[in-house]
C-alpha cells in the first residue's frame, strides 16, 4: 500500500526492514557464538544469512515493481541518488580505516620498532632491524614471501580498468536504447569481474599454501588480507549486483531516461575500481 503525496511516493508501512534486523541479529548471534565455540553457531549464521537474502529480494523486488509501475517521480529518483552516493562515501571511509592502518604500520610502527625510535627498539627488541614487508619483530625468523605486483595483481588491475570501460559502453548503449549492445557489454563486465575474482582466489590460495603469507603473517599479512579481502568481498557483491542489473536490462526494465538502478550499480562498480587502484599502488607496487 502506498500513497503519492504531492507526487512524492511514500510507502505505507513495510515489513522488510524488521525482517532485515532480525536477519542481522540472528547472523550476529550465530557468528559470535560460533567464535566462542558453539556448535550451533554456523546453523544460526546460515539461517540469518538466508533471511537476509530473502529480505534483499523482497525489499528490492518491491522497489523494482514500484519503479516499473511508474510510482517514482524525478524527485524520488534524486533521493535514491543522494542515498547511493552517501552510502558509497561511507564505504570509502570504511576502507580509509584500513588504509590508515597500513600507512601507520609502514610509516610509523614498523620503523619505530625497528630502530628509528631508539628507545622503543632498545626496550623491546634490542638491536633488531625491521623492513617492510615484515611478520613483525616477535617473529623475526618467520619465513614468507611477499606478494609482488606482477603478474596477478597487474592482470587484475587491467581487468578491472577494462570493466570500467565496458560498463561505460553499456551505459551509452542504454542511453541509445540499444538493448542488444547493452546486454552484451554488461555480460562482458560481469565476465571481467568474475575473472578478477578467480584470479584473486588463486592469489590467496598461492599466498596461503605456497608463500606462507597468511593473516598471521604479522602486520603485513594482516593489512594485506584485510584490504584485499574486503575489496574482494565488495567485488563479489558488485558482480552479483551487475548480474541482477543485467538480467533486468534483458527484461527491459530501464529506459534511456530512467535507469537509476543501472547507474547506482555502475557507481558502485567504479568505486570498487578506484579502491583497487589504491590497493594496487599501496599494497603491491610500493612494497
Amino acid at each position: 500500500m502506498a500513497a503519492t503525496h504531492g507526487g512524492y511516493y511514500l510507502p505505507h508501512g513495510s515489513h522488510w526492514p524488521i525482517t532485515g534486523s532480525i536477519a542481522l541479529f540472528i547472523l550476529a548471534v550465530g557468528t559470535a557464538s560460533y567464535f566462542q565455540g558453539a556448535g550451533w553457531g554456523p546453523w544460526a549464521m546460515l539461517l540469518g544469512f538466508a533471511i537476509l537474502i530473502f529480505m534483499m529480494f523482497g525489499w528490492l523486488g518491491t522497489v523494482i515493481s514500484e519503479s516499473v509501475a511508474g510510482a517514482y517521480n524525478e524527485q524520488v529518483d534524486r533521493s535514491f541518488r543522494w542515498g547511493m552516493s552517501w552510502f558509497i562515501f561511507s564505504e570509502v571511509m570504511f576502507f580509509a580505516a584500513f588504509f590508515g592502518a597500513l600507512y601507520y604500520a609502514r610509516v610509523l610502527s614498523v620503523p619505530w620498532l625497528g630502530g628509528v625510535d631508539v628507545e622503543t627498539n632498545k626496550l623491546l627488541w634490542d638491536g633488531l632491524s625491521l623492513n617492510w614487508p615484515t611478520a613483525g619483530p616477535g617473529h623475526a625468523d618467520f619465513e614468507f614471501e611477499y606478494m609482488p605486483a606482477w603478474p596477478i595483481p597487474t592482470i587484475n588491475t587491467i581487468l578491472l580498468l577494462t570493466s570500467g570501460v565496458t560498463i561505460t559502453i553499456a551505459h551509452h548503449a542504454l542511453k541509445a536504447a540499444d538493448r542488444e549492445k547493452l546486454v552484451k557489454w554488461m555480460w562482458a563486465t560481469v565476465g571481467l569481474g568474475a575473472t578478477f575474482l578467480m584470479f584473486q582466489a588463486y592469489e590467496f590460495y598461492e599466498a596461503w599454501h605456497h608463500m606462507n603469507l597468511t593473516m598471521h603473517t604479522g602486520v603485513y599479512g594482516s593489512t594485506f588480507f584485510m584490504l584485499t579481502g574486503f575489496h574482494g568481498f565488495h567485488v563479489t557483491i558488485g558482480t552479483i549486483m551487475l548480474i541482477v542489473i543485467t538480467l533486468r536490462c534483458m527484461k527491459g526494465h530501464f529506459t534511456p531516461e530512467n535507469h537509476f538502478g543501472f547507474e547506482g550499480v555502475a557507481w558502485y562498480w567504479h568505486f570498487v575500481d578506484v579502491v583497487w587502484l589504491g590497493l594496487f599502488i599501496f599494497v603491491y607496487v610500493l612494497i
Partner: protein
Amino acid sequence: MSAVDHAADAHHHEGPEPGLLRWVFTTNHKDIGTLYLLFSLMMFFIGGTMALIIRAELFQPGMQLVDPYFFNEMTTLHGLVMIFGAIMPGFVGLANWQIPMMLGAPDMALPRLNNWSFWLLPFAFTLLLSTLFMPGGGPAGGWTMYPPLMLETGQAFPFIIFAVHLMGMSSILGAINIIATIFNMRAPGMTLMMMPLFIWTWLITAFLLIAAMPVLAGAVTMLLTDQYFGTHFFNAAGGGDPVMYQHIFWFFGHPEVYIMILPAFGIVSQIIPTFARKPLFGYASMVYATASIAFLSFIVWAHHMFTVGMPLAGELFFMYATMLIAVPTGVKVFNWVATMWEGSMTFETPMLFALAFVILFSIGGFSGLMLAIASVDFQYQDGYFVVAHFHYVLVTGAAFAIIAAAYYWLPKWTGNMYDEQLGKLHFWLSVASVNVLYFPQHFVGLAGMPRRIPDYAVQFTEWNMVSTVGGFVFGFSQLIFLWIIIKAIRGGVKADARSWEGAHGMEWEIPSPAPYHSFQTPPDISKVMARGDAHS
C-alpha cells in the same frame, strides 16, 4: 505490483494503521521519530541507573557495594549506552520529527530505510546489554575499548563488536536519509541559506556520521580479527601497535563528540530567538562556524592521546588545532548572547534549559581548552577533571539541549501544552543538582583522582560525597520529566498551531498536534518568508 493502483485509494486511510504492529512496520517520520525518542528516554534511564551504581560505590573510599569488575562493567556500559543509546538516538528522533516539518516536506526521503535505521537499534542494544549475563561478564575496559585490555573480555567479546556494528549501521543509514531529505525534500523556493539552523547543524552532523562511523566499524573489526583470525594490527610482536587502535578510534571519536553537540547547537539556535523574540543574530556566521567546527573535528583527534606517546611535533600540532576549535565555538556563544541582547525575553522551560546550556556548555568548553594544553594534560589525563569536562559538554550540553527541544516541540507533537509549573520544577532541580554532581569532579580531578577506579584515596572523600548526593538528586529529578511527558501526551491545555508567541518556521504553520501526514502538497513558503520567518 499494484503500487500505483493503491496510490489512489490509499487516501482513504491517511491516519496510522491500527494495532501495535504499526510501530514495527511504520514508514512515517513522526512514528519513527516517536520510536527514537522513546528508545532514547528508556536508554537514559538504563544508563542513568548504571551511573547511580557508580556514584553509590564512589560515595566513600573503599569497596562497599559492588565488586570491581562489575564497577568496570558499569562505567563501560554507561558510556556506550548513553552515547549510542541515549544521546544519538535522541537527536535522530528530533531530526525525524522536525526535519520534514521544518522543510515543508511530506516525509523523510527514504521512508523504508528510515524504519530500518531505527529498528536496528533495539537489536543492537539487546546484544550489548545481554553481555552482562554472559560467562566472563560484559565489556569492562571502558567505552573506548582499547586493546589489549579489550581482548581480555570473555564470551561477550564478539557480541559487543557486532553490537557496535549494528549501531554504526543504524547511524549511517539514518544519516544518509537525513542528508537526502535535506538536499532533496525542501519546499520549493527554500534555499540552503534559508534553512533553520537545526537543519543546518543536522546536515553537517549527518556528514560527520557518515565519515566517522565506518572508521569505528573498521577499528572494531580489526579488534575482532586480532582476536579470532590471528591478525596483528594492535600487537607489537607482529609489527602492529596498540596505539594504532587509539588513533583509529579517536579519528572516529572526536568527530563523534561533535556529532553529539552540533544538533544541540541547532536546537539552542531555534529556541533562543523564539523566547527572545528576535531573529537569530549572525545566521550566516553560525552556518560557517558549524562547518568549521566539523572540519576541525577531523584534525584534533590525538588530543585524547597526549600522554600515550607521540612525536613532539604531533603533540604541538594537536594542541594548537584543538585550541583553534574554540574560535568558531566562541562565535556561536557570542551569537546566542547577541540574539538575547535587547530582546523581550520570557523564560519558559525550553528557554531555561537553553540558557543553562549556553552557560554550562561554555564551562565544559573552558575545561576542554585546559585539557587541550598538552603539557598540563599530562596531569589531567585519565582523571576526574576529564570526567567533569565531558559531562559538562554532554549532560548540560547535549542532554540539556534534547530536554529543551522536547519541551519546545512537545506541544507540536502532542497538541497539548506540558505542565509549565512542573517543567520549571524539573529545570531548577536539574540545574542545581547537576552542578552539585559535576562541579566537584573538577576539584578531585585536579587533585589527582583517577577515573574508572572504584576506590580512591581518603582525601577525595568529601567532594565525592557531594557529587554522589548531586547525582541522586539529578537522577531522580528526571522522573519528573518522564511524568511531564506522560501528562502532556494524555492531555492538557490545547496548544495553538504556533505554540510559542515568538516561534517562527514551517513547523508552526501546521496544526498542533501535527497531522499524521504534513505538507502532502509542497507549501507556499513565500508567506512564511515574508514574515521574516526564514531562518529563526
